[in-house]
């Protein structure tokens, strides 16, 4: 287990911004294909988000997994709540659920961008 300071720090981070992505690398330079995919989705949706690079701090890397009881990175948080990793964010984008989530929380996003992703990736 990581110390309580790390858990407190994580809680403050995810409550400090509407949208927070724990990822490998930065949003300008993702270091993992799964992190890169979520960054791309958020970028096309025009959503402003805070990125936390888990590679820069082993305590955060371990601590975030304990915080969410989720063993993999990336992890997306909206309004302090864990939404999911790469598979879930991708599915929610293709199904339109991500639009509903952002609308529900009053988070600005580009609906046309979301529609474009769906048009280019028809579900089988």
């Amino acid at each position, binding site marked *: 287990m990581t110390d309580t300071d790390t858990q407190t720090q994580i809680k403050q981070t995810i409550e400090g911004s509407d949208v927070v992505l724990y990822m490998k690398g930065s949003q300008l330079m993702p270091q993992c*294909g799964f992190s890169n995919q979520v960054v791309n989705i958020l970028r096309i949706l025009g959503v402003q988000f805070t990125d936390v690079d888990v590679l820069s701090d082993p305590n955060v890397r371990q601590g975030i997994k304990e915080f969410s009881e989720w*063993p993999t990175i990336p992890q997306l948080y909206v309004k302090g709540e864990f939404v999911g990793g790469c598979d879930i964010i991708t599915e929610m984008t293709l199904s339109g659920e991500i639009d509903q989530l952002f609308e529900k929380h009053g988070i600005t996003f580009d609906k046309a961008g979301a529609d474009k992703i769906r048009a280019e990736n028809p579900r089988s």
Partner: protein
Amino acid sequence: MTDLPRGPVAAELVRRLESELEPTRLELRNDSDQHAGHAGHDGSGESHFAVTIASGAFEGLNRVQRQRLVFRAVGDLMDRKVHALQIRAILPGED
């Protein structure tokens, strides 16, 4: 049931998923070769997998809860061996 990848890690993944979740459908794909040279690629050839699993255990659960069940079934393999596991967790008959 389609062909499952060979290898000790794949076999253990399948064993754990079958015993914990009693899937009606289980497909496992080994994507490790696509990640050669990547930080999580440990040279074992069994670091990156994708699974499609259908189980009645997912009834009434949202996506996060379903994936948590899968991660729980996989247990410490996630920390020790498997760097990435893409998951599609569905109900029997769902597609």
